[in-house]
C-alpha cells in the first residue's frame, strides 16, 4: 500500500520502516508528544531514549527482556532459596536435573533451554559476565561485545552448563513451541519468558497440563562482573505506530494515539468491555475468564494502573524487574551499506557460539573466531562504530 504511493495517515510498522523514514515520509513525533495531553506522561524511559534517536515510531510497551521461570512446586522441592548468584543458578539447575521431579524414574530433566539461539540466556548472563553494552570500551577504542573477553567468559560458562547437562544441547534446533513443550512436559526445568504476558501464557498452559501449578520467576544473577538484565537497544523502536508526514489529517491521527494513552483508552485497550472481559459488582470491577483472551493492547502505558490486577505474581515480578534493571545500550542505527557486513558477522558469531557451547570448538580457538568475525566485515563495523560513538562522546 505504502510502496504503491497510497500512504495511510496512521501506520503500524513491524519492520520495513527505515527505508521509508529516510525518505522523509514519516512524521517526527517528538513535538506532537511534547504537546500531548496524555502521551507525554505515558512513556517508559526506553521510549524516550528511542524517540531521541529515531523519532518516527512509537511503541508504548514495557521492555521485552527475557527472565527465567520455573514450576513453583519443583522449586519448593529443591529446598533451595531463590538463586541470587551465578553459582546459585548452577546449584538450582543441578538439583532439578538430578531430582527426577517429572517422576519418570530417570534423572534426565535438563536444567534450562533456549529457543534456537543463546539470546535468551544473554538477557540474564550478559551483565553477570560484564557484557554491559553492544560496544565495549577498550584503550584502543570500542570493540563489539561479541568479540570481547567478557563474551568469551560468558560463552565458556554456557559451555560448562551444557557439559554438566544443565543446558539443553539441542537448543539450536528447539523452536519456541518445542521449547514450551519441553517445559510443560517436564523435560526442562527452566525457560525464559520475554514479557509479563508471555510469563502468564506459560503459566496458563502449565495449569492446563498440571492443574494448580504456579510459576515462580527469578531475578538475574550476580556474577563476577555485575548483575542485571541485558542492556536495552534504544537505537530505535523495532515496531510501532507512525504518522505520515504527508497526511492531511495528522492531528486526527495523533488524537487517536493520545486517546489510546488516556485513562479511558487504556481501560478499553487493556481491560476490554464491561460485561464481557470484566463486570462491575457492587461498584467493584471483577475480570471474567474472557480477559485471558483479550489482546487488543496497542499500548501499555507506564502511568496507568489497571483497577484490578490479573497478572500473576511472576508476571508482576517480570514487569518490576525490567524497570529495576533497565540499562540503555549504545547500539545505533546502521546505514544500509553495512547490511551485508551485519548479516555476515551475525552468522559467524552465532555459528561459533554454537561451536563453543556445544564443545565442538575449544575456547582456545577464540582468536580464530575473532579473526573470522573481523574478516566477515567486523573490521568495517568496528571502524564505523568508533567514528559514530567517538563523535557522540
Amino acid at each position, binding site marked *: 500500500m*505504502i*510502496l504503491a*504511493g497510497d*500512504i495511510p495517515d496512521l501506520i503500524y510498522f513491524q*519492520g*520495513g*520502516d*527505515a*527505508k*521509508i523514514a529516510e*525518505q522523509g*515520509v514519516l512524521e517526527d513525533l517528538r513535538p506532537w508528544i511534547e504537546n500531548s495531553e496524555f502521551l507525554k506522561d505515558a512513556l517508559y524511559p526506553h521510549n524516550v531514549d528511542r524517540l531521541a534517536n529515531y523519532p518516527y515510531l512509537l511503541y508504548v510497551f514495557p521492555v521485552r527482556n527475557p527472565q527465567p521461570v520455573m514450576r513453583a512446586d519443583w522449586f519448593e522441592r529443591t529446598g533451595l532459596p531463590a538463586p541470587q548468584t551465578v553459582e546459585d543458578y548452577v546449584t538450582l539447575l543441578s538439583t532439578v536435573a538430578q531430582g527426577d521431579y517429572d517422576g519418570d524414574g530417570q534423572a534426565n530433566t535438563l536444567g534450562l533451554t533456549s529457543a*534456537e*539461539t543463546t539470546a535468551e540466556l544473554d538477557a540474564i548472563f550478559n551483565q553477570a559476565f560484564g557484557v554491559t553494552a553492544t560496544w565495549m570500551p577498550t584503550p584502543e577504542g570500542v570493540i563489539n561485545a561479541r568479540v570481547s573477553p567478557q563474551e568469551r567468559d560468558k560463552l565458556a560458562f554456557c559451555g560448562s552448563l551444557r557439559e554438566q547437562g544443565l543446558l539443553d*544441547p*539441542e537448543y*539450536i*534446533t528447539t*523452536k519456541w513451541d*518445542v521449547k514450551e513443550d519441553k517445559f510443560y512436559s517436564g523435560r526442562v526445568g527452566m525457560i525464559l519468558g520475554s514479557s509479563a504476558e508471555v510469563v502468564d501464557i506459560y503459566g496458563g498452559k502449565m495449569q492446563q497440563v498440571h492443574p494448580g501449578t504456579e510459576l515462580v520467576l527469578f531475578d538475574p544473577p550476580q556474577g563476577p562482573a555485575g548483575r542485571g538484565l541485558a542492556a536495552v537497544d534504544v537505537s530505535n523502536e523495532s515496531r510501532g505506530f507512525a504518522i505520515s508526514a*504527508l497526511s492531511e489529517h495528522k492531528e486526527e491521527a495523533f488524537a487517536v494515539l493520545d486517546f489510546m494513552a488516556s485513562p479511558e483508552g487504556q481501560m478499553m485497550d487493556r481491560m476490554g468491555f464491561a460485561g464481557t472481559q470484566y463486570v462491575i459488582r457492587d461498584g467493584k470491577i471483577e475480570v471474567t475468564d474472557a480477559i485471558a483472551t483479550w489482546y487488543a493492547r496497542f499500548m501499555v502505558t507506564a502511568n496507568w494502573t489497571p483497577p484490578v490486577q490479573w497478572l500473576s505474581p511472576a508476571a508482576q515480578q517480570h514487569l518490576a524487574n525490567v524497570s529495576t534493571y533497565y540499562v540503555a545500550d549504545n547500539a545505533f542505527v546502521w546505514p*544500509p*551499506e553495512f*547490511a*551485508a557486513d551485519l*548479516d*555476515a558477522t551475525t*552468522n559467524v558469531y*552465532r*555459528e561459533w*557460539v*554454537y*561451536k563453543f557451547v*556445544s564443545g565442538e570448538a575449544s575456547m582456545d580457538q577464540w582468536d580464530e573466531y575473532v579473526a573470522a568475525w573481523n574478516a*566477515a566485515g567486523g573490521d568495517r563495523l568496528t571502524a564505523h562504530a568508533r567514528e559514530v560513538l567517538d563523535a557522540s562522546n
Partner: protein
Amino acid sequence: MTERGTLAARTAPAVGNLPGSLSASRSAARRTGPGRSARARALRDWWPYYAMMAPGLIFFAVFHYLPIWEARLAFQDVRIIPPNIWVGLKHFEVLLGSAVFWQVFANTLIISAMKIAFVFPVPILVALLLNEVRSGPLRKSIQSAIYLPHFLSWVVIAGIFIAALSPSDGVANEVRGFMGLEPRSYMTDHGSIRWVLVFSEIWRSAGWDRLLYLAAILAIDPQLYDAAEMDGATRWQKMRFVTLPGIAPTIATLFILNAGMFLSADLNQVINLSNDAVRSQIDIIDTYVYRIGLQTGEFSLATSAGLFKGILGMILIVAAHTLSKRLTGKGVW
C-alpha cells in the same frame, strides 16, 4: 502431401460435423474476410473456452509477465514519492561485491546440483517400479502413502525431521544405536545438513512428482508391450526398451524446466530446516536476499538478486533445451 496436410485431411470431416466448430468459424472468417467481425464471431462461438482460459492467462500476466517490467527496480532506488532514482548497476555491485554472496552462490549451486542428481531421478524410479506392481490394492496403498507428504507444509516437515534426527531421542539415532554407532547430530553437522535437504525433498515430492511420469507411462501404446512380449521380452527388458523410451520426452521436458529453476533451491525448505550451526552450509541466494533485502526493506537489492537468478535460469533453460535437442531431438519448444 505433408504430414500436417494429412492430419488436417483426416480430422477435417469429423471436426466439420461439430456444431459451432473451429472449421465452421474459419469458413465464416474466410467468407467475411479477416477482421474484427471474424474475431468477434470466434469469440462468440468459443467464449466458454476463452473464459476457462482467462484465469490462467490473468495469473501469468499478473504474476509472471508484469514482474518482468517491474524488474527495472533492480536499476533504481525506490522512492515512496515518485520518481524512482536510476542508479544503474549499483545494487548488483553491492550484491556481487559481498564476499558472503559468493559463498551463498556456491551453496545454491551445490544444493541445486545435489537435488538435480539425487531428487530428480527418484520420481522416475518410483513410477517405473510402481508400474510393475501387479496388485491393484497394494499399488494404490503405496501411491497414497508416498504422495501424502506433498500436502504437508515445510514447517511441519521440518518439525518431523528435527524430531526424527534428534541426537538424544530421534528414531534415526535409535537405529544407529542398535547398530552400535555413536549418535550423530544430523541437523547441526556440516557434512550432513545438505543431505537432510535432499532426503526431505525426496520424501516430500517424490510421490507427487511421479504422477507426471505415471501419466506418461499410461499414454504408451499397449500394443508395444504386446509386441515386446511376443518377442520374448522380460519385464526388465520391457521397462528398459519400451517404458523408459516412452517417457523420455517427459523426462527431457521436466529436466529442462527443472534446469530453469536451478538457482531456486527452495526458500521455505531451507528457512525451516536451517539453524545457526549450519547456516554457512545451506544459506542460499533466496534466504540471503530474504534477510538483507526483504526484511530490511531493500527492495531494489532483492529485485537485483531476483533478476540475477532469472537471467541465469534463462541461460540454463536455453542450454538444456539445446542440449536435449541435439541428444534426443526433443526440447520444450
